C-alpha cells in the first residue's frame, strides 16, 4: 500500500496510551492478510510472520500509542478538566481544537488578552476543554475517562513530508507495515514478530511485557527521533530526509547497531546517528533487560514538533527505514555474527 495511505490510516483519532485496543482493527486491516494477529492483555497488538525453516526469532517493535489528554471531571459550567496522558507539549495547547470522547469537537480554553496578565506560565492542572455545549448536554455526551485527542488535518508539505498529530509513533508503525509488505514478497528466513506496543508514552510497559511473552532472540525498536533544526544538538538529531537515525548507546547491542549501519551503507542510505551516553529513551531500554536479556537496536524516523498536534516526518525516511529493516531480517539479524 502507498506509504501516505498507510500513514493516514494509522494516524486515526484514536489509541492514546491505555486505549491501544482501539487500534487493533487498523493493524488487522493493514497486516491481517498475511500475518497472524493477536492482542495481548496490555493492548499491545502482535502481527506474526512465521518461517518453516528456522526458529530464530526477531522482534520488531514500534509503539502504537499516541499522547493525548483524558477527562477527569466535568465542572458546573460544562468545562472539562483534563489531565495529560504522556508528555504532551503544553505550549501547543492553548486555543487549539481537540476531539473529545466519541467525536465531539472542543477547544482548549485560553484567557483573552485583557485577562492574560498572569506570567507564571502554563500549568497542567489548569488545562480545560470547552465543547461549547450546555452543561446537561456535556454530561450526556462526555464521561470521565474519555480520551481527548489533539486535532490536526492530515497535510502534505512539500518534498513528501507529512504533518499530522500522532506521527510519534504511528510513523514507526508505518515502518513496520512497509517492512512486513517487503518481507511478504521475499519470505523471511526466520520468525518475525511485528509488535505494535502499548503505553510507551506513559511507562514503556507494552513492549517490555510483549518481549517477555515472545522471548525473541533479538529486537529492533523503531521510534521517532529529533529532526535537525535550530537549537537542536547535532549528535541527538537527524536531518529530515536523511533516511533515518541509527542509535548508538551502551544499552544497545553493538552487533545489531553495526549491522544496521552496514546495511544502510550498502543501500546508500545516508543515515544520521543519535549517540547516547546511557539509555535511548525508547522501548529498547526496557526490552534489553527483559527476562534473561534481549539484544536490542534502535532506528528512528526524524521528526519535527514532537509531542504536538503538528508532528512532521518525511515519507522517504519511513520507506528507507523499512528497507533497512527488511534487509536486516533477510540477513537473519545477528544470528550469524
Amino acid at each position, binding site marked *: 500500500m502507498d506509504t501516505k495511505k498507510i500513514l493516514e490510516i494509522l494516524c486515526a483519532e484514536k489509541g492514546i496510551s491505555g486505549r491501544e485496543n482501539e487500534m487493533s482493527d487498523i493493524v488487522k486491516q493493514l497486516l491481517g492478510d498475511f500475518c497472524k494477529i493477536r492482542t495481548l492483555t496490555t493492548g499491545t497488538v502482535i502481527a506474526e510472520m512465521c518461517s518453516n525453516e528456522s526458529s530464530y526469532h526477531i522482534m520488531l517493535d514500534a509503539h502504537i500509542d499516541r499522547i493525548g489528554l483524558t477527562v477527569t471531571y466535568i465542572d458546573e459550567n460544562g468545562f472539562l478538566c483534563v489531565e495529560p496522558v504522556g508528555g504532551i507539549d503544553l505550549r501547543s495547547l492553548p486555543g487549539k481544537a481537540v476531539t473529545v470522547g466519541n467525536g465531539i469537537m472542543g477547544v482548549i480554553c485560553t484567557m483573552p488578552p485583557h485577562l492574560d496578565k498572569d506570567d507564571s506560565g502554563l500549568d497542567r492542572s489548569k488545562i480545560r476543554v470547552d465543547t461549547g455545549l450546555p452543561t446537561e448536554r456535556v454530561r450526556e455526551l462526555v464521561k470521565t475517562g474519555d480520551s481527548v485527542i489533539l486535532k490536526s488535518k492530515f497535510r502534505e508539505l512539500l*518534498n513528501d513530508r507529512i504533518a499530522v498529530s500522532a506521527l510519534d509513533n504511528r510513523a514507526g508503525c508505518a515502518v513496520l507495515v512497509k517492512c512486513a509488505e517487503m518481507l511478504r514478497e521475499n519470505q523471511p528466513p526466520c520468525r518475525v514478530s511485528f509488535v505494535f506496543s502499548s503505553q510507551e508514552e506513559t511507562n514503556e510497559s507494552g513492549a517490555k511485557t510483549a518481549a517477555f511473552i515472545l522471548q525473541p532472540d533479538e529486537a529492533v525498536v523503531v521510534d521517532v527521533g529529533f529532526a535537525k533544526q535550530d537549537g537542536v544538538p547535532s549528535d541527538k538529531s537527524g536531518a529530515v530526509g536523511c533516511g533515518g537515525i541509527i542509535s548508538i548507546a551502551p544499552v544497545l547491542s553493538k552487533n545489531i547497531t553495526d549491522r544496521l549501519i552496514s546495511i544502510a551503507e550498502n543501500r546508500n542510505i545516508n543515515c544520521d546517528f543519535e549517540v547516547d551516553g546511557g539509555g535511548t529513551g525508547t522501548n529498547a531500554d526496557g526490552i534489553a533487560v527483559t527476562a534473561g536479556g534481549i539484544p536490542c537496536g534502535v532506528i528512528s524516523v526524524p521528526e*519535527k514538533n514532537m*509531542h504536538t498536534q503538528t508532528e512532521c516526518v518525511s515519507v522517504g525516511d519511513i520507506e528507507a527505514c523499512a528497507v533497512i529493516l527488511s534487509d536486516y531480517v533477510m540477513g537473519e539479524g545477528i544470528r550469524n555474527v
Partner: protein
Amino acid sequence: MSDLELLKRLCTADGISGDESRVRAIIEDEIRPYADEMYTDAMGNLIVFRKGRERAKTKLMISAHMDEVGFIVTDITSEGMLKFAPVGGINDSAVFAGQVLVGKNKISGIVCSKPLHLLSADEKKKCPKMDSLSIDIGVCSKEEALKYVRPGDSIVFDSFYDDSEGRIISKAIDDRFGCLVMIEMIRSELPYDMYFTFCVQEEVGLRGSACAAYTVAPDSAIVIEATTAADVPFSEGEKRVCLAGGGAVVSFMDRSTIYDKEYYDMAMRLARENNIPAQTKTMIAGGNDAGAIHRSRGGVRTIAVSVPCRYLHGSAALIRISDAEAVSEIVRILASEIAGNDKTY
C-alpha cells in the same frame, strides 16, 4: 440568521487584512441579484445600497468587516524556514504548532519551535514568542522556498469547522458572521432604504470603515461584530465581559467608542419587547469599526451589536448559534426603527 452553509463558506474563505478579495467575491455573488447599487471602492470596501419599501427618514449605514486576523511572511531563512509577523492582534500562545496555509497557492505549513524534550523546565512552561517561531513548508533552502512563497505572502490558520449541536467552532467568525447577517438582510425585503458596507482592514486599525463612512456619509450606523466572551474557567464576575449563550451583546462603551445612549437604550428596549435575549459588556474592553465610523465627517450616531465569541482571534473561535440569531433579529428591528424615524434628538 439561517444560512449556515454560507457562513461556513465565508469563515473558511481566506482573507487577512489587506487581502480580502476572496471574501468579497463570495459576498458579491450572493447579493448581486438583490443589490440596487454595489461597488468596490479604492480601499477594497464593498459598498451596497438596497432600496426598501419606503424612503428612510434617517440615512442608515450597516457595517461589518470582511478581514480576519492572520500572519504575513516577513523573511525566509537560509534553511528555507519562513519568519512571519501577526496581522491583527494574535496572542503568542495561539500560534505554536498550528497548521497554516501560505500564499495564493495555499502551501501547507506548520509552526515550529525547539522540541519539548530539549527545553529547560522554565521554557517548557512558557508559550514561545512569535518571533522565535518559524514555519516549515517542507523545503531545505531559501532558493527552494522562493519557488513557492515569498515575503509578503498572506498566512491563514488551516482550521476546522463544526456547526453541530447548536454552536460553531471556526476561524474568522470575527467578522464573517457580521457579513452573513448583512447578506441575509440584503437578500430580504427591507422596510426602508439602507446602505451596507463590507469593510476591509478592521483588524489593523479600523481603516476601511473610516473611508466607507466618508463615502456613504450616513446619519446613523449599526456595526455588526463578534466580541470577546471571557466566560471561561478562572475568569469571574465582570471580568467575563459577556457570556456565550447570553444573547446579543449591545455595547454602551468600549476602548474605541462611547455609543449613542439613545440607540443603546432603544436596542435594549426592542430586545425586551420582542423577547430577544440581549446583554451588555461588563468591562470597557475591545473596540471595532464603530470607533472610526462615529467620528466620520461631522459625526455619525452609532451603535454596535455583537455575537459573544470565545477564543476570538484564534484558529478555533466558538459561538452559540442562538446568540447569532439574537444579533440578527435585533439588528433588523433596530435598523427599521432607526431608518423609519427622524434622526434628530
